[in-house]
């Protein structure tokens, strides 16, 4: 069973506020169910205008009744209980123009209607999730919401993870993967760094339920205290219908405290009315490290006996030896889903098995997942959606980064050890590590929710959503007692005795969300929508760990068999409660004015801090629908603006002055100072204004979506250092700082050719981010390693001393070294030099270019190149080679190098500008060819549709980066972008077959 003992125990006591639940249930029961009027049925089909392809998933709405259905696999639909008389039926689909037709329905009769939709490069009528019941038409909201059509993207792109699905498809959403280790995932940063110290990750919701968005979990195999297993990638892309990204405070106000980093809404697939339709997808492929010998390169050593400089390319040496360090991993996936149902109840169910292997034998992920979504519409007034998703995965980890492990010994190899048992590896040949260590994480995760939408009256709709996301992680790293002398020789005596670590970590998210909407038409031209609601979130984490050292005999693998054992457990909990009210006025369905306020309280706020209020206002105007509009080449134009606030809660318990229970020297209980606390601690406040427009040009064949944003964070939480003499360690969290981010986001979509046999689409995304620190209290700067927050500069910019001149002496030593003296200052001796700004760590610009060419309706060619630029990385791999292990060419032949560079290289780590390098890159990220079999071929094996896709991922990188991969860094690091022998992004080839029955 998924639920652990602890979970069950807590669940039995979780409802501390039954009165709220009763109130909401009461609100639902207050309204009587209305009786059915005389009615008929509307049936029909939705097809593409150019290719007459069925448009599965098109939304079919009964205008005025605020209800409808979804077109099935063959584009057909049925709406029952349609009031007799003339009705307007409207069909909407992303990427197509909305179409409305009149139909006359006879009582007890059936009316048929057919829609042929033309493609459109912009979408004004799609329904997006905004935190209010039932969603909102895109045209009515004043902020940009980027939507990714997951099902369509999966058809053409080599998508194996949720991160793949998001990457380069939403301007302003910067995905930073950090490592290519299988099982890892990216840091996601939307519109720049909005906080100095708090979590920078957007909230993730699945079908309205807030879920675990941990960037990295699991065992610290990276060194520097980081695990890398991503919770985002637990989510199966095959089950996703669409993703909507809400980017900043202006848009996320209704999500309240914790939403200042934006919100990612994942909408999973739901069944459509009709006979059961089975979809099967099989994927086979390979993952590999492209050109490892070239990218890891050579190390050098001067042989003291011969005086000659020797070199070693250890990757090539191992390839030649027949024992390659990095091998090709197999990736495979098998997905089956079925959907269908009647008008009253529809279903979507799926099962998915996926197995991915990395480039080391210990790195893999096996994942079994399933989903069951039910939609129950007992009558016109009630919609009940139930969702249940399960994931069970096992992730084996690699030994990269930090200090120690395969990568460390490989990257920092030395010719000096070539003729030893090490074969040149610094500490340990790979096979010795792989023989004894296999750290892994097993995860069981369940996400479920029940959403009840009730429309008791034509003017009132309410929605209750209750859900939970339970993640049970189990980490394990056991090193058995090492007895094989061939292996043991590489380990210390204590390490040979073995060790063990096991831990369980349960993370539990609970969501309780109620909202209601009153829609009135005070005049024929004006529609008033009043929305209100309340959300209650509870998150708690409980972890238990045991570790120890010294197995008395080989073969033992459990912690209790260790000679010395330790154990511990921790528990964290957060709760938040918020209310909102929103008023929107729409005029002639083309001008929309919205105002809202949200009030939040949170368990992490200081005891002296009161409730926080977040206001919001927005304006949206579909100018092209005004009678005066007469711009021939601009068919659809909407301008919009939005202003809003949101926040970010302090870290759990940060407000409290606490002591930590510890063990005294005699083994007795004791406590030690832990956090100084701050009773006045408040949330960070994000404020944003955005302006933008969408335009459909040239008969909607060119879509332009442009947004400019300007946001600021005030009361930014800083970790102010604490004087150690005061007794407390670490730092005190205080609301002292301010940050400003601004930039633009541009999305172009061009339908270059639209003919029956040729369809060519081009997409271009570009976003920029200007980041500036406005205030850090009394400090001149807040230093984070080689980075610093300095007023007037980007958040966490690189600040180090910079050598500007040096000479070389006859012994190859840099002398007369002078450093930049600061702005407007003369060069000074480096010991007296200030740290000077050397660039920003996060990209200033990011974007992508993609194209899809469809030939003869069957063959689809697709390519995507994405890029990030305007930032600097810290190439610590090169630094360690040159400054610590002294095995660079600069160390051997200094006379061949610029003395300025040598001044850095020869310093004891105090001068590092030579590895602060431009990390700009462009990646040929995705390439695919997809062929849909002709219908008669598919029918031969009983399928209604079948396609085959060949695709590649991470095929080429254009960059001047000096390290192995410009995307590499330690993913747990909030701001630091430092590469040190991380696994690069792996190249991938996949062949996929999709079959529908």
């Amino acid at each position, binding site marked *: 069973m998924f639920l652990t003992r602890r979970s069950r125990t807590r669940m039995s006591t979780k409802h501390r506020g039954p009165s709220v639940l009763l109130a909401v249930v009461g609100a639902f029961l207050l309204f009587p169910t209305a009786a059915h009027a005389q009615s008929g049925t509307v049936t029909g089909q939705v097809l593409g205008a150019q290719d007459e392809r069925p448009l599965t998933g098109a939304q079919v709405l009964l205008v005025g009744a605020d209800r409808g259905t979804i077109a099935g696999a063959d584009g057909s639909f049925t709406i029952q209980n349609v009031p007799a008389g003339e009705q307007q039926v409207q069909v909407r689909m992303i990427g197509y123009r909305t179409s409305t037709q009149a139909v006359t329905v006879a009582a007890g009769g059936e009316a048929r209607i057919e829609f042929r939709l033309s493609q459109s490069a912009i979408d004004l009528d799609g329904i997006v999730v905004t935190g209010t019941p039932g969603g909102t038409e895109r045209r009515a909201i004043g902020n940009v919401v980027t939507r990714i059509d997951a099902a369509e993207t999966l058809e053409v792109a080599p998508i194996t993870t949720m991160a793949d699905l998001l990457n380069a498809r939403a301007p302003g959403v910067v995905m930073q993967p950090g490592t290519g280790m299988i099982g890892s995932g990216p840091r996601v940063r939307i519109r720049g760094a909005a906080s100095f110290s708090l979590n920078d990750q957007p909230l993730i919701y699945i079908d309205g339920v807030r879920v675990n968005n941990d960037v990295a979990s699991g065992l610290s195999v990276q060194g520097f205290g980081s695990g890398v297993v991503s919770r985002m990638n637990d989510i199966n892309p095959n089950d996703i219908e669409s993703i909507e990204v809400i980017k900043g405070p202006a848009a996320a106000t209704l999500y309240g405290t914790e939403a200042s980093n934006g919100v990612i809404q994942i909408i999973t697939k739901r069944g459509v009315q009709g006979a059961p339709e089975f979809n099967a997808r099989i994927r086979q492929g390979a993952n590999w490290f492209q050109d490892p010998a070239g990218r890891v390169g050579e190390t050098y050593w001067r042989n003291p006996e011969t005086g000659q400089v020797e070199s070693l390319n250890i990757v090539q040496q191992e390839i030649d030896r027949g024992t390659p360090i990095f091998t090709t991993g197999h990736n495979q996936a098998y997905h089956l889903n079925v959907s269908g149902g009647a008008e009253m109840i529809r279903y979507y169910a799926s099962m998915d098995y996926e197995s991915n292997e990395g480039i080391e034998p210990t790195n893999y992920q096996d994942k079994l997942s399933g989903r069951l979504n039910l939609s129950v519409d007992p009558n016109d007034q009630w919609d009940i959606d139930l969702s249940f998703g399960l994931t069970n995965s096992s992730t084996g980890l690699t030994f990269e980064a930090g200090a120690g492990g395969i990568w460390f010994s490989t990257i920092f190899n030395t010719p000096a050890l070539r003729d030893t048992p090490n074969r040149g590896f610094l500490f340990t040949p790979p096979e010795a590590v792989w023989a004894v260590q296999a750290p892994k994480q097993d995860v069981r995760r369940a996400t479920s929710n029940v959403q009840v939408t009730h429309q008791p009256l034509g003017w009132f709709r309410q929605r209750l959503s209750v859900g939970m996301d339970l993640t049970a992680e189990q980490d394990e790293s056991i090193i058995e007692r090492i007895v094989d002398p061939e292996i043991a020789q590489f380990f210390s005596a204590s390490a040979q005795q073995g060790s063990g670590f096991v831990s369980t970590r349960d993370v539990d998210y609970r969501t309780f969300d109620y909202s209601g909407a009153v829609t009135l038409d005070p005049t024929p031209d004006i529609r008033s929508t009043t929305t209100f609601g309340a959300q209650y979130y509870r998150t708690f984490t409980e972890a238990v760990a045991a570790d120890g050292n010294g197995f008395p005999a080989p073969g033992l693998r459990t912690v209790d068999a260790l000679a010395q054992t330790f154990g511990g457990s921790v528990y964290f909990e957060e709760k938040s409660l918020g209310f909102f009210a929103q008023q929107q006025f729409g005029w002639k369905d083309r001008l929309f004015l919205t105002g809202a306020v949200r009030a939040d*309280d949170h368990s992490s706020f200081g005891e002296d801090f009161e409730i926080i209020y977040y206001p919001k206002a927005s304006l949206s105007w579909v100018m092209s629908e005004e009678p005066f509009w007469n711009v021939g080449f601009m068919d659809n134009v909407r301008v919009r603006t939005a202003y809003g606030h949101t926040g970010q809660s302090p870290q759990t318990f940060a407000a409290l002055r606490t002591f*930590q229970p*510890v063990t005294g020297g*005699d*083994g007795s209980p004791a406590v030690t100072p832990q956090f100084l606390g701050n009773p006045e601690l408040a949330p960070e406040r994000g404020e944003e204004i955005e302006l933008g427009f969408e335009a459909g040009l040239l008969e909607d064949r060119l879509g332009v979506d442009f947004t400019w944003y300007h946001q600021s964070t005030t009361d930014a939480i800083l970790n102010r250092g604490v*004087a150690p003499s005061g007794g407390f*360690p670490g730092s005190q969290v205080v609301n002292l700082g301010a940050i400003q981010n601004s930039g633009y986001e541009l999305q172009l979509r061009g339908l270059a050719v639209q003919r029956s046999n040729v369809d060519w689409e081009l997409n271009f995304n570009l976003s920029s981010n200007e980041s500036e620190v406005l205030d850090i209290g009394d400090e001149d700067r807040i230093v984070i390693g080689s980075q610093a927050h300095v007023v007037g500069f980007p958040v966490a910019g690189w600040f180090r001393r910079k050598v500007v001149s040096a000479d070389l002496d006859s012994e190859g030593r840099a002398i007369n070294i002078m450093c930049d003296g600061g702005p407007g200052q003369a060069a000074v001796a480096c010991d007296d030099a200030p740290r000077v700004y050397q660039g920003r760590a996060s990209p200033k610009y990011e974007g992508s270019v993609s194209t899809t060419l469809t030939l003869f309706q069957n063959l689809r060619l697709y390519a995507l190149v994405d890029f990030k630029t305007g930032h600097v990385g810290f190439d610590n791999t090169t630094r360690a080679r040159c400054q610590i292990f002294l095995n660079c060419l600069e160390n051997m032949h200094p006379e061949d190098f610029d003395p300025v560079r040598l001044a850095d290289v020869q310093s004891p*780590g105090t001068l590092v500008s030579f590895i602060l390098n431009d990390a700009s890159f462009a990646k040929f990220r995705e390439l695919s060819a997809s062929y849909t079999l002709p219908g008669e071929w598919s029918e031969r094996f009983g399928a209604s549709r079948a396609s085959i896709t060949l695709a590649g991922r991470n095929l080429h990188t254009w960059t001047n980066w000096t390290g192995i991969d410009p995307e590499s860094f330690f993913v747990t690091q909030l701001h630091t972008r430092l590469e040190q022998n991380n696994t690069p992004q792996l190249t991938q080839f996949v062949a996929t077959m999709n079959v529908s029955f």
Partner: protein
Amino acid sequence: MSLHPMTVTDVYANSERGRKMNRGNIRDRLDSWGRAAVLLPLIVALVGCDSFLEVEAPSQVIAEDLENPANAPLVVASSIADFECALGFYILSSGLLGDQLIDTQLAAATWDYDRRGFANARGAYADNTCNSTGNIFGVYRPVSTARWAADNALRNLQNWSDDEVPGDRSELIATAAAYSGYSHVLLGEGFCSAAVDVGPELTPDQVFQRAEERFTTAIETGQAVGRSDLANMARVGRARVRLNMGRAADAVADARQVPEGFEKMANYSTASARSGNHPYRWVNRFGWASVGPLFQELEVDGVPDPRVPVTNTGQTGADAFTTVWSQGKYPTEGTPIPIATWREAQLIIAEVEGGQEAVGIINALRDRHDLPHFESTDPEEIRAQVIEERQRELFLEGQHIYDISRFDLPLNPAPGTPFPVKGGTYGSTTCLPLPEVERENNPNL
């Protein structure tokens, strides 16, 4: 030790707030919610719910709970625990800064200890706490925390009454004062200057003066309640700081009162990484440091000196360069470390008195290990031998770094010598600078 440390559960039991951390009564806040009147039905429902934002914090102890006199035994026991941890890290850091230990690591964060660097007074030595039990450790925070914890306990105990405090309040006062005194000793000897309670910068002598005051309290209070162990511990400590302040006669007066064989030990255990014997963990268990060349294979007239037990492990450290020599003085993770001993008191007497009394003390200490006797009538030779005996007798007890300063001993390797493999050169500092983290965050500096 007759303290009866309370468990963390006891703390909760003694807390009015119990284990709950209440963010505040939401009922009191409802006036503010009036602006959201449209939500009236829900708000009415919330009136009956006080605990919506109440969360559990079972892993932490809220500070105000420790201000309850009922928790006094736990507070004092905790200050001892903080000191014992700090002492372990102090021995490591001072051993590396001096020549008892050498670094074997790849992690640059610890090189400054061995390299005698600290040019910018930042880094792990300043920031890391006792919870940093990995390969990078700190010393200023552990010692400062131990000093604050003992002084805080002392302050509270002096403000509470006998009736409020369970057990013997005077005994607790003597204990807190003695450990506060020793925390001050580490601050004064190990650091070029220091600060206490976010106050102004203090010279080592000012720190020693504070230590003397606390040792005096411990001696007087300890004697009054019949705790001779605490009184003798404080006598050794007071003798040490008086000697450091140049008051040799006062030092000898204290030292002579210490009974033969007296030892006050810091306790360690395998219960957690934090509570382990750090010199054992670093040198023997993990090989992150090695005994330095000057302390390898020491002999007395050809007889191996058991006071400096050292073994060549044959293993190379993480820097792939340094051979690890383990120490045998602390052979397990639970081996106690001496804080105050009769041996030290005797060596203080020998140092001050010199002459044949010093020779006699040297030989009495050697007799404990069946080592050959030392014979000399040359005052300089005797003084040099006392210094040498201190190095061996007090090996890895946190005494040597200040001896280097007091006796102006040569640094080894000499300043300017290249720091092997890892870059840079050896510096000349023999005290740790007051860290920038103190200067930047202490308004009185």
